[in-house]
């Protein structure tokens, strides 16, 4: 239509499937946090399933056995998210502080650090169990 070039597209869209998703579930749950807790326990699934790209950098995982306590990762962490515990000679990672750069993964001589594909990490407590990796 002259002057309103978007109109035909709008009419087309009226009769086609919406581009947005009903996320994180098909119907609004009574409590979103409750629902996500359920997802974490494996009692519910996220809708629609969100594929993560091959090189995705999600929540960090730490192989305590492999670590030798060289503390190289501390030197490259931009966010100061890694703490060295002298008593155990191991590290502790604060996920709330981590900026998911994966630089510690690159530097670790023992390959003790990896990025998982887990991305629904928000909580209200900085020091919740899920937010500290050690």
């Amino acid at each position, binding site marked *: 239509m*002259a*002057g*309103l*070039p*978007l109109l035909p*597209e*709008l009419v087309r869209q009226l009769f086609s499937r919406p*581009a947005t998703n009903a996320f994180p579930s098909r119907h609004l749950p009574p409590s979103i946090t409750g629902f996500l807790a359920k997802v974490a326990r494996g009692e519910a699934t996220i809708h629609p399933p969100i594929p993560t*790209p*091959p*090189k*995705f*950098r999600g929540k960090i995982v730490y192989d305590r056995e492999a670590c030798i306590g060289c503390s*190289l990762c501390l*030197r*490259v*962490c*931009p966010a100061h998210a890694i703490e060295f515990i002298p008593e155990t000679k191991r590290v502790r990672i604060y996920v709330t502080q981590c*900026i*998911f*750069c*994966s*630089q510690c993964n*690159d*530097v670790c001589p023992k390959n003790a650090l990896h990025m998982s594909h887990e991305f629904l990490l928000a909580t209200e407590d900085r020091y919740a169990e899920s937010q500290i990796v050690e």
Partner: protein
Amino acid sequence: MSAEKAKKTVPYTVPIGPVHPALKEPVMFTFGMEGEIVRTVDFAPGQTHRGIEWMGMRRNPVQIVHLTDRICGICGIVHSLSFARAVEQIAEIEVPERADYIRTILHELERIQSHLLWAGVAAHELGFDSLFYLAWRVREQSMDLIENLTGNRVNYGIVQIGGVRRDISDEQRALVEKGLDYYQGLLDQMATLFLKDSTILMRCRGHGILSGDDARLLCTVGPTARASGLNMDVRQDYPYCAYGDLDVKAILPPPETGGPQGDVYDRIIVRLLEVGQSIGIIRQCLGQLPAGEILWEPKMAKLLSVLKKAEGEGIGRVEAPRGECMHYVKMAGKEAPDSWKVKASSYSNLMSWIPMLQGEQLADIPIIVASIDPCLSCTDRVAVTRNGQSDILTKEDLTRLSREKTRRMMQ
């Protein structure tokens, strides 16, 4: 003109900001109005200062490069790229060719997503939400590509001092080519939707004019300068990364649309054409992608020791989607740099708001403000202190103020 003085010479003032739906980021405007007409303009940036340079001075360059990813929420690569280039200059690091090409490809993908994002915001500021949804929907394709190449949607973490951290595989190459075909097919449609729409034409043509002279005097950069007819583009004038091998010309509003007039409409045209240009550049890069290493030094411990010894000054300049972005770094043989200065592109463009807004209507403020694609959190490097009174509120201040207010309300 100061806000106090403005009050005396105009009938009434309208404050816009620091937080207002017309602004996507905080900045404080004070408009002196006469009816619906804007007579005087004053603005105060510095509402979203985060002290990122301060953080940088306490970290080594390998750490900073990932901090720079977070300077802007849209340009994930320009800041890390210009910082890395400054440091590479100081430490005399030569970036492998393949890494330069990969940097260029991501740089241009970023331009595509940033310009589409802007197009959506502009439509929203005009009250045209359908076009906003459409623009942001097609933007997703470029976000998916970036996510696939770098791992994450916004904070890419791809640039390292001396190269890039991830290579482009053959499958990814095919994906990028598919994405480019998608955008190639879309270009004409986007041009029609934005440029042939009579309501957009009515609102944008002849409004928010920045003359070529003003643009030069105010040192504007990027699409804002080019829409006013200044033939400048860092990629053309001072080629970096792979741009020296490529054919890049600054894009000016073409004669078919009446040449550069420096209005909001021209800024739309320039950005749309630049999306097409970026597609071409990525195609060229993929076509002549050289083989080889992607990092100057894959062992980070060694890289760190080289950087620790480095001494000197360096300047990294890149053409961000909003214009030239510049990082200045001074190293003095220590872990952390001696000095680090970030000049985001919007810093050069903000002053052009004043000639653009004067004499326009209140209704045009959102679109004109948005037309330079301001990125304020990237720009803010200082917070203002006046008469010994600090305008910076710390977390403690805010907590105290909220407690006091609650007490007042309970009485």
